[in-house]
């Protein structure tokens, strides 16, 4: 819990007059699972989009291992070691399962147009390596993507497997920070439990994870630390139980009267 992977320094992003993220600051440490919670519209996904370069912050700065990444393009940020999943699935539906994961290795391969057009040996070796890497990642989800399923198109998968495939694609680039946007959204309790174990397993393999989640069981069960947001600002930070009992958090979710009733 010492090395800072991501340093989010008082970044602000506004849309028109609305400040979606307002001077938010936090750090993500090496090897932890940090959860971002908050009511809808509290700026969690905007925070993700700022980190991955979909939006540029209006002010403030974002540092990955001490290096500023604010204002870079998403592909540059991916190359620097941040990959993500999306709240609403964004798979490459008409590509196979294996190809989906192999797209994730794009940053780590370099074959140019000529070596690809002529199938030069260097390109072939690289292709073999990328395929092996993708298969290795898919094997981390035992029984889900075995054998023939890897050459099926992604749209043929079940909903839960599509969510898993998105995680696999994000893992293919060996990210130093993995962002998961509601990884268990829409899953049933058994699937939720399985994905939760999977996420913990990823942490044990050394990945650093920042996730947005609504499912309290996952938040309490998997995260090492929790940050609660409301109206674009941080209202609480700490271990899961502390944050869950924080009066400001209860108020953000339930409103003042609800909070009074709860206390």
């Amino acid at each position, binding site marked *: 819990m010492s090395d800072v992977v991501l340093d989010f320094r008082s970044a602000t992003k506004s849309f028109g007059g609305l400040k979606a993220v307002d001077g938010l600051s936090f750090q993500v440490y090496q090897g932890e699972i940090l959860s971002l919670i908050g009511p809808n519209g509290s700026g969690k996904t905007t925070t993700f989009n700022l980190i991955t370069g979909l939006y540029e912050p209006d002010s403030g700065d974002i540092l990955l291992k001490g290096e500023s990444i604010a204002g870079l393009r998403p592909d540059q940020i991916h190359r620097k070691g941040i990959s993500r999943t999306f709240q609403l699935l964004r798979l490459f539906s008409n590509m196979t399962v294996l190809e989906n994961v192999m797209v*994730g290795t794009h940053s780590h391969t370099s074959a140019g147009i000529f070596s690809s057009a002529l199938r030069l040996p260097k390109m072939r070796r690289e292709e073999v390596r990328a395929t092996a890497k993708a298969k290795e990642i898919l094997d981390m989800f035992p029984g889900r993507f075995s054998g023939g399923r890897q050459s099926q198109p992604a749209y043929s998968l079940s909903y839960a497997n599509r969510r898993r495939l998105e995680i696999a*694609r994000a893992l293919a680039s060996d990210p130093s920070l993995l962002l998961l946007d509601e990884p268990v959204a829409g899953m049933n309790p058994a699937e939720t439990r399985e994905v939760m174990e999977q996420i913990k397993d990823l942490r044990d393999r050394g990945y650093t994870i920042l996730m947005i989640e609504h499912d309290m069981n996952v938040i309490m069960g998997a995260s090492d630390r929790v940050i609660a947001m409301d109206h674009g600002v941080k209202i609480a930070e700490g271990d899961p139980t502390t944050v869950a009992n924080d009066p400001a958090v209860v108020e953000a979710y339930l409103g003042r009267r609800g909070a009074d009733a709860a206390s």
Partner: protein
Amino acid sequence: MANVFSGMGQRLRQAPRWTFSLAALVLAITFPLLEQAGLMDTLWLRLGTRTLVYVLLALGLNLVLGETGLLHLGYVAFFAVGAYTTAILSSPRLGYHWNFWAIMGLAIAVSSLFGFVVGFPTLRLRGDYLAIVTLAFGEITRITFNNWESVTNGPGGIPGIYPPVIFGWLVDKPIEFYYLLLIAVVLVVIVLTNIKNSRIGRAWNALREDEIAANHAGVRSMGMKMLAVVISSGIAGLAGAIFAYYQQFINPTYFIFMQSVIVVCMVVLGGMGSIPGAIAGAVVLDMTPEVIRQVFTNWLPSALGPDFLPQVQTAMQTDFDRYRMLLFGIIIVLMVIFRPEGLLPNALWRREVHEEDPREAEHTRQRLFDFEEGHKDLEV
């Protein structure tokens, strides 16, 4: 009977893909020999040569429209650039007579460069805007060729393009152009197939499927789209150069917007993102109308007597081009509504309707449920 056919279809489907490619290649190679043997009118050889030009164009456009998902409506402009480069450098117009290889290289380079210049400002735009802007660019190109009289001779066009000399061989007969084009097509198909099965091809497909997700998987939109546009403009330039040599005369009317639309039709009909599809689309769309015309004006009258449906015969002879474009319009609309994946779809392509997983629809309810669960925790 039905059983026999379905069994045959089954066996055909199980045959490896390369057998089809081989069969198509053999067919393409033997086609002009029929003419040489006197079994076929020269008209068909000329038609076959034109079809191969369209095949090249369809292959090039498929790269942009099918693989990368960019609707380019000014594609014929690159074809025009290639053709005019050749015409200017190998005709009495300005008195140049360059070597074939130099002109080929230059035509490809100039049209690729043109693609780069066009792509640079426009590729940031989203799909349908890109389509309109490229359309505008294509029209500006044509207007420029039409008005730049000192070089292009304006609407009069450039006549008398010298035939090319390749390794000491003077190429000026249709059959020679046919084989020249066939070689170009085979080379282009090999190169495109290789690129399609590489990280670059995957990146293109990813951009087509979901641009934002592709960016977040490390694919740079601008660079990859630019690559696709530059390569496809180069292919169009190549096609244009050979076309100019073959026609020996070009003018701006060869490069009207409708030509772009015809190539788009070919790609859509064949199946976007499928190389065999692009070829099949070009062959079917370019050959079928001519076959229909021949059936009604030539074969049926000679078989059933010359007074066979005289009105149809005159209509076929005079208004045929319009019927053809009307037919193309109907084909596009029917195809996108009923079979958007095309005749020979990319193996994985599916209809672009959203398959709703019931659990996805329940997403919101589930979240409310989760929220209540969370609420219990918060109460503790």
